[in-house]
């Protein structure tokens, strides 16, 4: 579905990600993890064409992204980005903006089906009661849900998310990831997500991509990637990996300095 071959890119002459090869299949739930500055967001920006590849190509269903019309891409790929726009529009108006790529030339008003899709996106994300509130007046978790609703209004096949759970409490974290998992299961939506929380990544994702210094260090199932040897090498931090007793997925624990002294390590 989405394929990167020998992809290098960065900002100006500074190369951030270097010769990345990656193949993402339809319906996969893929998570990109790695330390700050490892190139996760840059990779995402290259896929969404905010930055142009310096070398290499990205293929969407076998076609080079550079040769596909931008609106065409936006109908297939939707992005939930991290920097939240501060705008004075209602949640519904905001979600309606997701229909932008679907408008025909000279079409000024949304038609019945546009409104249907938007209402469906709003009900899937459970923000019906917020529809007429202003975007600037709702909470952080609700903003994230609205962003996801807007992305769903694009009717995408691929959903890209950049840390959708940052700064949220555990209720909202679980809500949002459960929602994305449901979308992934029910609609075969391909999900590419950046997460900082390794345990969330472990619980929800089929495949993890561990990045370090602009390259892919390791890729595989949570069990394959989340082990103390690889993590300690990439994050330069002492960790202990246990198993979640309920889901049997790996669970990463950190070790504070004081505890380290106490244990004599």
């Amino acid at each position, binding site marked *: 579905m989405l394929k990167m071959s020998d992809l290098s890119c960065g900002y100006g002459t500074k190369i951030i990600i270097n010769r990345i090869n990656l193949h993402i299949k339809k319906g996969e739930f893929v998570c990109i993890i790695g330390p700050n500055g490892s190139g996760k967001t840059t990779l995402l920006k290259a896929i969404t064409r905010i930055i142009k590849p310096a070398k290499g190509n990205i293929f969407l269903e076998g076609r080079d992204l550079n040769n596909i019309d931008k609106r065409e*891409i936006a109908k297939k790929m939707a992005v939930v980005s991290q920097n939240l726009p501060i705008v004075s529009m209602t949640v519904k108006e905001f979600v309606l*903006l997701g229909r932008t*790529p679907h408008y025909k030339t000279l079409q*000024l008003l*949304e038609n019945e089906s546009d409104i249907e899709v938007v209402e469906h996106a709003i009900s899937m994300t459970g923000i019906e009661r917020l529809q007429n509130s202003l975007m600037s007046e709702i909470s952080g978790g609700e903003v994230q849900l609205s962003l996801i609703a807007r992305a769903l209004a694009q009717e995408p096949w691929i959903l890209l998310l950049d840390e959708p759970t940052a700064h949220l409490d555990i209720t909202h974290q679980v809500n949002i990831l459960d929602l994305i998992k449901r979308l992934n299961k029910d609609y075969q939506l391909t999900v590419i997500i950046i997460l900082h929380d390794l345990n969330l990544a472990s619980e929800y994702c089929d495949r993890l991509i561990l990045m370090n210094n602009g390259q892919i260090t390791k890729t595989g199932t949570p069990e394959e990637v989340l082990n103390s040897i690889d993590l300690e090498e990439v994050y330069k931090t002492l960790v202990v990996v246990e198993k979640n007793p309920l889901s049997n997925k790996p669970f990463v624990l950190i070790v504070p300095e004081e505890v380290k002294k106490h244990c004599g390590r």
Partner: protein
Amino acid sequence: MKNRLSRWTFSILISSAFLVAAGALSLCIGSAGIPITKIISILLDGRGTSEYSILVDIRLPRIILGFAIGGALSLAGVILQGMFRNPLVEPYTLGISGGAALGTSICIILKLNRLIPDIAMPLSGFIGALLVILLVYFINTRRGIFMIQGLLLTGVMISFISSSLVILILAISRTEDLHGIIFWIMGSLEEPNWVLIWVATTASLACLAFSYLFCLDMNALSLGEEEAIHLGVDVEKKKKLLFLIASILTGISVSVTGLIGFVGLIVPHFMRMFVGFDHRILLLSSFLAGAGFLIFCDMLARIVIAPIELPVGVITGIIGGSIFIYALNKRSSF
């Protein structure tokens, strides 16, 4: 959604009503008052009377020009504020007015305006504006990417440079030229040449129609450039076209009427408070309201200390600024 359509219709009705009222008032009021009830009969069969010529030769051209320029300036303001996502941007921020002022000043001291009267001043103003537009555009384009934040800074700097050059010209020019330049800088809707009036009107209406091709892109751009790209907008292309529209509007306005400040800053901002972010309604209602506002201010400029006429920019500044501060205080949430 029904509710939104009726809200939109309502705001178009309100701004049209404001425009018509300003136009009618402006026809009636002046050094010679003409009652509104008599206007139609004078226009229909009063040909040859002095009242007819006051209406058709003096007041009507100003109203039409006010419509064109007021609309053009506030439309340019809406486009630029939307593009930069900065409410303090106005058509003159880009330095286009400075270029036009410089062009006209040079025209006056070289006495070109005596060679080809009527046309020389607007033409040289337009050339000055055009040169600045090209300069700003090429300075800010790197490898095909139009850098919008730099645009603002370059624009402000070019404004400074050209106003310094205008002051230099003022300092070395003779008294009679001095008067001409200052008069032009103050801005006025007085324009004896009908051709120019029609050119300005056609151009600003054409730009209004053209801008509607981009209203959805502007809506997406109000979330920022990256989000607009995510929504499938060809941001680079659209930014250039929008810059082009705003430049044409501003260039034509300043070269025909001189500098009339504030309309392009206040009206878009004000309309955004009333009708919201959606450019599908914002473009048209700002155009109408801007047109009405300028016609109204011009009428005040004519009568406040009649028979002397005030520069209309003084009125737009005082009225626009005070209304704006008042509205801002009432709606502190904005």
